[in-house]
């Protein structure tokens, strides 16, 4: 019952958050300077032409009227039409979402693998040179922003030793027999390893650039948690039973030490998705972030609104999932 109550409470709070985001994004992007009509005005356009274009795109109505029209549309599942592409916003953002999700998930897997390995190695070799090297590596990884890692990888793996593709999501020469936009997952399901390898070759550098700072955070937090746990009585007891250090760390300490890291990973995943905006641009990866930058440059207001709402849905959903997972894993929360 406690879990259900928590879920319902969070669901209500999620809905309120989304309404708040919708209101803020709608009005803020209309208040800041730069409107799409001014951008598409041809040389020599007169007042009549401006009025005609405003009416065509619905900007001739008052802001509250525009908001009501947009709000009604959302309730009917219609997020409007993109000004630059003349395509429905919903299909555009949902079409790009899989690319961003796949990139984020790949980055998360890399971050957990790298961060986890560093934390375990640092705990195993605590107090020694290895731990010092890991701490320095963590410091560097945290200090350098993801887009600089991206530039470094482009130079290293794109130019000097060109083993990975620099831009895009998939090679244009490949014909994709897919029905979804989850290319990475679908290529595996269809056993099309040629396409899968091509996709990985495109995703590797952007995913790694996104993963490195997160890996450092995971490594630091997990190592700290493990260190604290290693001093607890039940761990000492395990040692006295003669278990190896590796067994003690992996089987005894890790299950308890991992809880704070799990929460962090959940929260950081949302930031990771936010971070894709710059990285997708750098690697010309055809995801939601790249589309968001184009939408902002072109002042494509309906598209900006759609993307922000979708990001908000992702953020709140992931946070909800993390809270529920935490509640499930933590007996104290589970039993109220």
């Amino acid at each position, binding site marked *: 019952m406690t879990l259900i109550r928590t879920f319902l409470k969070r669901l209500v709070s999620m809905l309120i958050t989304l309404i708040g985001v919708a209101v803020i994004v709608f009005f803020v992007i209309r208040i800041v300077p*730069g409107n799409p009509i*001014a951008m598409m005005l*041809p*040389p020599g356009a007169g007042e009549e032409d401006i009025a005609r274009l405003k009416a065509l795109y619905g900007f001739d109505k008052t802001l509250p009227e525009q908001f009501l029209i947009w709000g009604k549309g959302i309730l009917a599942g219609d997020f409007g039409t993109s000004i630059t592409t003349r395509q429905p916003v919903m299909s555009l953002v949902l079409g790009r979402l899989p690319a961003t999700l796949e990139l984020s998930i790949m980055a998360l897997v890399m971050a957990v693998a790298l961060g986890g390995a560093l934390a375990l190695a640092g705990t195993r070799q605590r107090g020694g040179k290895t731990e010092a090297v890991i701490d320095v590596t963590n410091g560097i990884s945290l200090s350098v922003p993801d887009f600089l890692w991206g530039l470094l990888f482009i130079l290293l793996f*794109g130019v000097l030793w060109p083993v990975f*593709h620099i831009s895009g999501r998939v090679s244009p020469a490949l014909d994709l027999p897919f029905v979804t936009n989850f290319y990475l997952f679908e290529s595996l399901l269809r056993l099309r390893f040629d396409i899968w390898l091509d996709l990985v*070759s495109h995703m590797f550098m952007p995913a790694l650039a996104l993963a490195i700072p997160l890996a450092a955070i995971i490594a630091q937090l997990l190592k700290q948690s493990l260190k604290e746990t290693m001093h607890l009585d039940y761990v000492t007891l395990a040692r006295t039973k003669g278990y190896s250090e590796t067994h003690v760390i992996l089987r005894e300490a890790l299950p308890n030490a991992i809880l704070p890291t799990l929460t962090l990973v959940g929260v950081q995943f949302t930031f990771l998705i936010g971070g894709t905006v710059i990285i997708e641009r750098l690697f010309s990866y055809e995801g939601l972030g790249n589309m968001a930058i184009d939408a902002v440059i072109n002042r494509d207001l309906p598209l900006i609104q759609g993307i922000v709402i979708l990001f908000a849905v992702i953020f709140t959903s992931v946070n909800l999932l993390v809270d529920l997972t935490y509640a499930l894993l933590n007996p104290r929360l589970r039993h109220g």
Partner: protein
Amino acid sequence: MTDFSRRGLLKLSAATITLAATGLPALAQEIKDLVIANNVNLPSWNPTVGTSAVNPTIQGIYQSVFDMFIAQDTDLSQTPGILTKWGWNADKTKVEMTVREGVTWHDGTPLTAEDVVWSLERAADPDGGNPIQFIWSTIGNFEISGNQITGDVLRFEPTIFKWMSFLTGYVLPKAYIEANGQDGFEAAPMGSGPYMVEKYERNAFIRLKAYDGYWGDAPEFKTVTIKFVTDSAARVAEVESGNAHVTLEMPSEEFDRLRAGNLMGVAQPISDIGMIFFNDIDVMKDPNVRRAAVKAVNKQAIVERLLSGYGVPIDTLQTPEYSAYDASISTPYDPEGAKELLAASGYSIDNPVRFTIQTTRGFKPKDYEVIQAIVGLWRKVGIEAEIEVYEIAKHYELRATDTLAPAAFYNWGNSIGDPTTSTGFAMFGPSPHSVWDGEDLVGMIAPLWGEADEAKRIDGWKAVDRKIADDALVLPLFQYVQPILHAPGVKVVPHASGALLPHLMTRS
């Protein structure tokens, strides 16, 4: 589960690297499929509606697939395209056009005079969403006889035929669009140009295939991939690594560095210019301040030192390729003269005139640095300008509402080289693109819009440019030079409009 053993994963990793390595093209190989790393995305396949229609940077892609009413040569001059003849009757009350025979759409059906008329009428429809509707609506009531079209001049527009090689001036397939709708057309665009669209991934790439039935010279590269690589570092890396064969718009230092190595490059002046708008508000109402601001700028030094020589200093809003260019109009660098002018208005280095200058940062190469340099030059004569950085979208809005700062940097494109689309729209007060409202200039420009005598019209614009230079109503800076970097295996023919056209590229 055994598939994911450590050994298995190692094998997979090795395979990934091997495939990636072997799959990447080498620079020295003969180019079979041309790959271009383009600097901008193509948001829409509709070349006549929305922001894409008036975006000059993507017109090259459109021109690879669609034909314009009238073709344009690499020097901006017009040449026969879908229309082989065009003009007015003697009293300029009618337009007369001849449609090329034997042209086919990409599906093999013939392109007819009906398609041309339908495209013109569609462009002129006030509810059609064509941003250039105000030009296209100046002709109408078309009649077709075979491949001849005649139409009424509803309002005389001397540039109507020039617009047929400019924004939204594309011939589109009537029957195909009527059968498939606008959405169907955008999903599977069809034109009559040198290339057919084989595949389009939004924000990612376009794959083009040469159209065998093209009426013009057959493109040498039968398949072309245009990748959208918006980051200049990634774009350069694409060409350096051999992943792409041609790219454009990179920092001049990078261009020089790579051109000195294994890659080749062409750099030719294009029709875009850098300029500073003066808004006739505050201190800019003082002609001494404006004239001093113009005289104090050493354009040659800016081009040489900041743009590495990739620019051509200009003193009017016309470049040498434009039809109203007048080399005799000049505003030479004269810092002492600037000081004298400022002194006459009571300003000096110790008591400088102050105003704000707005600029973009990174929208065009070295835009902010150029303005920094100009502010430095101004400071030496007694002008203290504060730099305000804004986004290009804000510039458009401020300009349309006539609320730009006293000075504002902008780059102006004019790929048909007519004075109306440079000096005219930039300086005619009632235009939403002008912030100079002086009635005397409005009085000079107004009669030129409908001037039927071409020689008189061009002379009129030259006189306008002379007045603008004499009164320092704007500060023209330089004509941009477009750097294009390419692999040794391809020969690139640059176009003065700045459009990168794959059908002009050949193997070298």
